[in-house]
């Protein structure tokens, strides 16, 4: 045992020495190959939320226009810059940074690595930089449509929202849009909503709280639940699915595809088309037509899927009307 252990130590030691000289994959230096890197916000790439949507966009670019792709997950927000630089230093051409939290680091990196193009998801660009495109969304508009749908579906006159934390601006925008949308349809509707009481560390990863809270809302008459807040919101959706005659509305992506457990109640999702937006921007980069400043992505409701034939035509028409109204500015979310 002892000798074996010593051998192991020696082997490991040499491994460490040798591996220092590992070279990075150098394909990215070639001009014709477009390398796309993605840096997540704190969390994982498979979070069923914005990180995942953005990554799907990047993956789509690999499939359709042959980019070389790689992602880095951020565990510590202080590593934003480190992770971005890692791509830049390894000759990646496009770096996608996901989440408003990375905004500062992204613009800093953009100044430092001027030949790299950055796509900042959810990052509003107050001062445009030539190599940064901020992919931003009118979450309030998506929320507005969700609220309108909820108000039209509700029979009890009470609708609920289970939310992440108000420390994150998009969540607040979703919520406020949701409330105005519901009021737009029915001025007397009662909207009961709540933010997660914990801090950032837990607010988006507490499905149990989301589920309990949704139940609490349903028990007092709410018949539509809007879940907006990562897996916390998902908990609320799944809970609503286990009650009969209740509807729920997902958020960010078309959750019909990501959250099968919610199928019994999931009428639609208030989506931000992050995947499409990211893919589009990568395409632009490939074609050397990379925009700078703010690039507005699509928002709206996802398809109704199985609920398509259960939803009366007048609701669909009204939703289309609202969608157009929001687009041309005749309807305001506030």
């Amino acid at each position, binding site marked *: 045992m002892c000798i074996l252990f010593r051998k192991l130590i020696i082997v490991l030691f040499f491994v460490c020495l040798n591996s220092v000289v590992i070279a990075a994959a150098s394909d990215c230096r070639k001009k014709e190959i477009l390398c796309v890197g993605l840096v997540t916000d704190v969390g994982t790439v498979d979070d069923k939320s914005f990180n995942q949507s953005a990554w799907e966009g990047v993956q789509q670019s690999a499939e359709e226009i042959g980019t070389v792709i790689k992602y880095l997950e951020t565990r510590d927000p202080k590593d934003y810059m480190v992770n971005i630089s890692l791509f830049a230093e390894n000759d990646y051409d496009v770096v996608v940074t996901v989440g408003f939290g990375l905004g500062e680091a992204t613009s800093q990196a953009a100044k430092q690595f001027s030949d790299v193009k950055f796509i900042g998801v959810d990052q509003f660009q107050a001062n445009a930089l030539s190599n940064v495109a901020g992919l931003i969304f009118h979450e309030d508009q998506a929320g507005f449509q969700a609220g309108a749908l909820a108000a039209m579906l509700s029979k009890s006159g009470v609708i609920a929202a289970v939310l992440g934390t108000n420390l994150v601006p998009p969540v607040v925008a979703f919520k406020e849009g949701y409330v105005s949308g519901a009021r737009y349809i029915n001025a007397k509707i009662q909207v009961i909503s*709540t933010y997660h009481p914990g801090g950032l560390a837990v607010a988006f*990863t*507490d*499905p149990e709280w989301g589920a*309990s809270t949704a139940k609490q809302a349903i028990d*007092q008459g709410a018949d539509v639940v809007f879940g907006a807040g990562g897996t916390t919101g998902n908990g609320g959706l799944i809970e609503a699915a286990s009650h009969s005659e209740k509807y729920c509305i997902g958020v960010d992506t078309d959750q019909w595809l990501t959250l099968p457990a919610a199928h019994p109640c999931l009428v639609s999702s208030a989506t931000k088309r992050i995947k499409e937006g990211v893919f589009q921007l990568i395409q632009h980069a490939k074609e050397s037509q990379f925009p700078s400043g703010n690039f507005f992505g699509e928002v709206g409701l996802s398809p109704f899927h199985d609920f398509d034939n259960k939803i009366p035509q007048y609701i669909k028409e009204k939703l289309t009307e609202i969608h157009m109204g929001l687009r041309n500015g005749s309807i305001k979310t506030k």
Partner: protein
Amino acid sequence: MFQKYINSRCGIVRGLSFLVLLVILWSYFYDSAITEAVLASALRQSTPLALGALCGLMGERSGVINIGIEGQMLLSAFVGFLVSVWTGNLLFAVLTGVATGAVIGLLLAFMSVSLRIDQILGGTVINILGFGLTGYFYQVGLNTKGKLQSISLGPLQDIPLLGPVLFNNPPITYLTLVLVLVVHYVLFHTHWGLRTRAVGEHPRAVDTLGINVFLMRYTNVVLGGAIAGLAGSFLTLEAVGSFERGMTNGRGFVALAVMIFGKWTPIGSWGAALLFGLAIALQTQLQFGGQTIPHQFIGMLPYLLTVVVLAGFVGRARPPAAVGTPYTKE
């Protein structure tokens, strides 16, 4: 004199419970639906805390601090979820979740009883391991075939206030109520419980009576682990229906507080867990009601309340005398 002290404390607790009851009744007549909703939510939120506290007190009554409840819950939640995905059999999934908790309990017992590692360290190892392993092996796209559904207990459900709150719940919630009583019975009315408490107070005395201290501690920690496993199963298989990284969110630690709040007794812990659940449900309700107070203030209320209560009159709780000290034979 000690007796008198207990009595006076009981008086305060009784008074407080009576007050809470009054408020509940008043609000029930004011708005029955909301009251029922809040109470049902409180019961539900208290379930993992109560189970965690039961796990903690099984260990501590036999002399082993278990600070790794969080990790135990997380790992069993994960395994239960995986099994549910693979087999689609919820009962089997719950059982494997419970078994996982027991196995982690065995690891904790091995560390703290056999290896005589510092017990807080052992628990910390389990916590980090829980986060690491579940984080590393979790894959997205796994979906369960549903979760445990409510079972209403027939006519009992029609009792006003109590019916909808107590008698229309999913199985693990019922099981928790039963377990609180069972653990109470076992601890205070069986020879096993007598020996367990004795081991936690004075292991050497128990050893000299020919009782195997190590076996007692092992068994209790493993059984406690199984209960923590049930708490984990509750999270994935009953409350949510899916797994998320870090989804325990500190409930294992709060369970410890609940256990101490409850003075190392099952029923006391259950009461404390209910209080916590009620606080969380109330703060949600306040937000529902459109309160404009920043939600952080409401959010920290239960914690502040605990500190005040601990400092005020539960401070001098008496833990099992031998808790935290590994036992060595001479």
